[in-house]
């Protein structure tokens, strides 16, 4: 029956279902876990955006963290300077800001490929957060901007712990964005993105406007990044350049590769991994009484190892592995040797 409904409806229903499940989950868990659930949320949309750009469209971006930076600072500045705006307007503008930046980046990068593109986006990741030092009056330098957001309607304050409420807001935004993303990925744009990734010349011969497609991919992906950054700022109440290092961009890429490069579900596995690697290494550090030098760097070392292992042994990531399992469960494996 589900197959008969248009994909948009299916995605919306799935989103509503997921939201319901999440709300229930937040009731069943403590505030700490609620915060983690919310964190998985904004990482999910960040990695999903990267999945569209790098996975579907093949443009290797090492600068995704820069778009999160833009989104976070947009929200922070708006909350501080224009407190009259409701939070959803701030988040929307963060998304737009990310998108505009992505439009510019995509236009600049449209003719770049492979390592050239990776290098240019790396330069963006290194260079953009440094802007906070250049304009300290506006952007408060390395200390960053701190603020408080009261997003709960007056009637609900006190009845629901703020972390739970925040988790709902985050996931509402994330699921909405995911519905949009899933529709784009499933439809014509998704096919076009993949066509351009697989063979630009062939796609162009088939009538696809390659440059426009690549810029569009950047736009959508960085809008997701902007939203993710905005949600992070909303959740943490701060925006500081120290959160948006090169390591962040590389970690997002690691999460994408781990989850499965060309898939939105992979983004979910990757986001969960990002949050829980941190949790596990923190717990491990406590159990083993590791120095802070080791425990701080352990997650990064882990991501690096993950990237190497995945690329050497499991190129399709977690989602690829799951897909293979699913296929094998549904029908027995056909004979490997081709009969000639």
């Amino acid at each position, binding site marked *: 029956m589900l197959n008969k409904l248009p994909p948009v409806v299916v995605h919306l229903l799935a989103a509503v279902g997921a939201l319901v499940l999440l709300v229930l989950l937040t009731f069943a868990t403590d505030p700490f876990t609620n915060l983690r659930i919310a964190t998985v949320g904004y990482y999910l949309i960040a990695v999903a955006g990267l999945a569209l750009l790098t996975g579907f469209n*093949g443009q*290797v971006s*090492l600068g995704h963290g820069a778009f999160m930076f833009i989104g976070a600072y947009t929200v922070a500045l708006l909350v501080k300077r224009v407190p009259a705006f409701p939070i959803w307007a701030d988040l929307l503008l963060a998304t737009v800001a990310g998108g505009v930046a992505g439009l510019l980046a995509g236009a*600049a*990068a449209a*003719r*770049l490929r*492979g*390592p*050239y593109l*990776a*290098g*240019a986006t*790396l*330069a*963006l990741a*290194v*260079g*953009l957060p*440094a*802007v906070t*030092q*250049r304009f300290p009056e506006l952007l408060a330098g390395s200390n960053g901007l701190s603020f408080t957001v009261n997003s709960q309607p007056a009637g609900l304050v006190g009845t629901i712990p703020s972390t739970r409420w925040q988790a709902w807001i985050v996931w509402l935004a994330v699921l909405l964005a995911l519905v949009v993303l899933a529709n784009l990925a499933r439809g014509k744009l998704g096919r076009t993105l993949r066509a351009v990734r697989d063979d630009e*010349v062939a796609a162009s011969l088939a009538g696809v406007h390659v440059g426009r497609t690549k810029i569009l991919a950047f736009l959508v992906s960085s809008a997701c990044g902007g939203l993710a950054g905005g949600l992070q700022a909303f959740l943490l109440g701060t925006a500081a350049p120290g959160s948006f*290092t*090169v*390591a962040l961009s*590389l*970690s997002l*890429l*690691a999460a994408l*590769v781990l989850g499965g490069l060309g898939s939105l579900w992979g983004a979910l596995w990757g986001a969960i991994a990002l949050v829980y690697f941190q949790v596990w290494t923190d717990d491990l550090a406590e159990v083993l009484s590791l120095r802070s*030098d*080791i425990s*701080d*760097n*352990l997650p*990064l*070392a882990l*991501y*690096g*190892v*993950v*990237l*190497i292992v*995945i*690329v*050497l042994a499991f*190129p399709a990531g977690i989602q690829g592995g799951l897909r293979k399992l699913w296929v094998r469960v549904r029908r027995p494996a056909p004979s490997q040797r081709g009969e000639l």
Partner: protein
Amino acid sequence: MTTFVNLTLAGLSSGAVYAALGLSLVIIYRATRVVNFAQPALALISAYIAYSVTKGTGSYWLGFAAAIVVGTLLGLAVERLLIRPLRDAGELSAIIATLGLLLVLQAVSGMIWSNEPHAFSYAFDFRGRFSAADLFAVLAVVVTAAGVLLLFKFTSLGLRMRAAAFNPEVARLLGVRVGVMLTIGWGLASAVGSLAGMLAVPPFISPTTLDEVFVFALTAAVLGGLDNPLGTIIGGLALGIGLSYVSGLLGPELVPLAALAILVSVLAVRPAGLFGRATARRV
């Protein structure tokens, strides 16, 4: 006037470092068509080893030598263990693998030597407009670059390495041990990279010290054309001087973005870099 002279001289010595690190990237790219994103991390670990050796023995030059040796060995190991298995796996895999290595090595250096910056000495006196340290940097890079270029152009080893890079299959048919050539190429490149690291790190070493320099080195390599060593050296020096002006006139914080702007504008006009060879795509 003196400002411009100062800025130019400062740019020259930093440009020498970008040129050296860029050269190490180009050597590897020519040999294996891989951009070694882990290069700054290999140089970083070499520099940290130098730091520990110098601290332990009191000799800067002993540390320097240790850095070069360790760097070379690391480069050899990385090619043999990580890059060789991925030879047929496609461009994205090599990029991801070297990025993974970058993360691991940066994290490991933080684990062993802590994230806090340590003071790191220059080779020579660093005071003054164009100090002994600056002069050493420029000379060291020029001599190394000349050595590498001479190696490639005039020795049989260099000829074999070039052949292995340009056409590994044909090279094999001519009796060249291609695998060995690639490994040596990585070792050589890492040695050059470690030199660049030793010049770039002072006055402080920390896990993220070389991030910015790497971006500039990559920019220099791309500007010069990823397969053109001489172009990279020129590109590095020019970039160093240009960015020095940006730093002096617009503020040091904007330098990475300026590099990005330069990179994007040059590639927009000449997609293969200023001196690069654009290869026609086979359809």
